[in-house]
């Protein structure tokens, strides 16, 4: 079907593209799930739609109520698009050091942006939003890090789509942020085939984001800890900005214009392919490259671009 009543019906059912020519092991196939094809431009459309519609259903979100969330961009943009369509006012707590396009996109959808200090990163934005939510109990706080509707959207959408299109999958690789994608898809795939391995990819915590007084101020998303993430994951790899950008460029070699966190996920998929003997990897390409053009990730000198990337939040 290619005729739709609402843009929200365009969310999900994204294509799976064979990018095995980038695999370092010819016995390992790599398939990329192109989430940039969602109407809001990222995988976060799924969680945003799931969280909003779940809250509408259980009555915690009422017509005209203010939606509040902290986001480094993609969740904010997805929520703001849906809020605009459905007529909710929305406020997004955004770290100052996101790429300018992420900010512009929120403005496109009419979100009110509340800045949080760049050196506190997403962690600081989340704390600020939690405080605002306490001060304004009349606002509806989405809280993507702890909202069960986030992984549920992937358990009911992304996971079944992957299983439908690639039942031979042996490894699932995705970036770890709220853990919604990994938990939802990982759980679904393991229920179908317990042999499926789930690998997470994380960016390093930058020095500048490291503004904690002590480790007790750290944070593990409840979506991950309460959802049994430690048991569900099989591996977790850290991928730095240089490698992320290198793999973002390699994705462009096969015509995939992806964001920098997708380069990180692809680097993780390549590490996985190199370590296993044979298999079929499905990797999530979380968003397109549009919001990162200002970083010159594709065309600039690799070391200069990497240095710049250390100062912006791209995950």
């Amino acid at each position: 079907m290619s005729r739709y009543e609402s843009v929200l019906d365009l969310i999900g059912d994204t294509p799976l593209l064979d990018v095995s020519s980038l695999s370092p092991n010819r016995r390992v196939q790599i398939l990329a799930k192109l989430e940039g094809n969602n109407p809001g431009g990222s995988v976060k459309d799924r969680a945003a739609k799931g969280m909003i519609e779940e809250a509408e259903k259980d009555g915690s979100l009422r017509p005209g109520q203010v939606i509040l969330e902290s986001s480094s961009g993609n969740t904010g943009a997805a929520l703001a698009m849906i809020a605009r369509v459905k007529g909710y006012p929305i406020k997004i707590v955004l770290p100052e050091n996101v790429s300018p396009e992420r900010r512009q996109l929120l403005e496109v959808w009419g979100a009110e942006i509340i800045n949080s200090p760049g050196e506190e990163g997403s962690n600081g934005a989340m704390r600020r939003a939690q405080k605002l939510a306490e001060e304004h109990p009349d606002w509806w706080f989405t809280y993507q890090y702890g909202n069960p509707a986030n992984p549920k959207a992937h358990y009911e959408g992304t996971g079944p789509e992957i299983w439908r299109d690639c039942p031979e999958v042996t490894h699932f690789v995705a970036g770890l942020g709220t853990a919604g994608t990994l938990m939802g898809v990982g759980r679904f795939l393991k229920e179908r085939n317990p042999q499926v391995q789930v690998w997470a990819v994380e960016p390093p915590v930058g020095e500048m984001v490291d503004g904690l007084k002590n480790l007790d101020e750290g944070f593990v998303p409840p979506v991950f800890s309460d959802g049994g993430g430690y048991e569900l994951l099989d591996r977790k790899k850290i991928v730095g900005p240089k490698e992320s950008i290198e793999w973002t460029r390699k994705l462009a070699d096969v015509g995939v214009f992806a964001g920098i966190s997708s380069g990180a996920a692809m680097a993780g998929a390549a590490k996985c392919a190199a370590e296993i003997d044979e298999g079929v990897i499905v990797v999530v390409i979380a968003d397109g490259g549009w919001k990162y053009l200002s970083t010159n990730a594709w065309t600039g000198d690799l070391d200069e671009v990497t240095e710049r990337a250390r100062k912006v939040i791209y995950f």
Partner: protein
Amino acid sequence: MSVVRVPTVLRAATGGQATVKASGATVGEVFDDLVEQYPSLRPQVLDDDGALHRHLNVFLNDDDIRYIGRLDAKVGDEDTITLMPAVAGGAA
């Protein structure tokens, strides 16, 4: 000797050093050597039962040790161990 990278939040315990050296054949042994050299690090990285602090991620090269044997993960001489706080979202 392995290189251990220490995040800002723990550097008071290492006299401000961002990287220190410690030896051991497993991550646990490297930790033992580390907290012997820098005793004030111990209560920050390990809980009372000797398990990892829940907000501390430890990477052996690029692998989170929680999924490769935790403190029993084998360490080679050329390996780098990176201590990293667990926080919401990342930034490079």
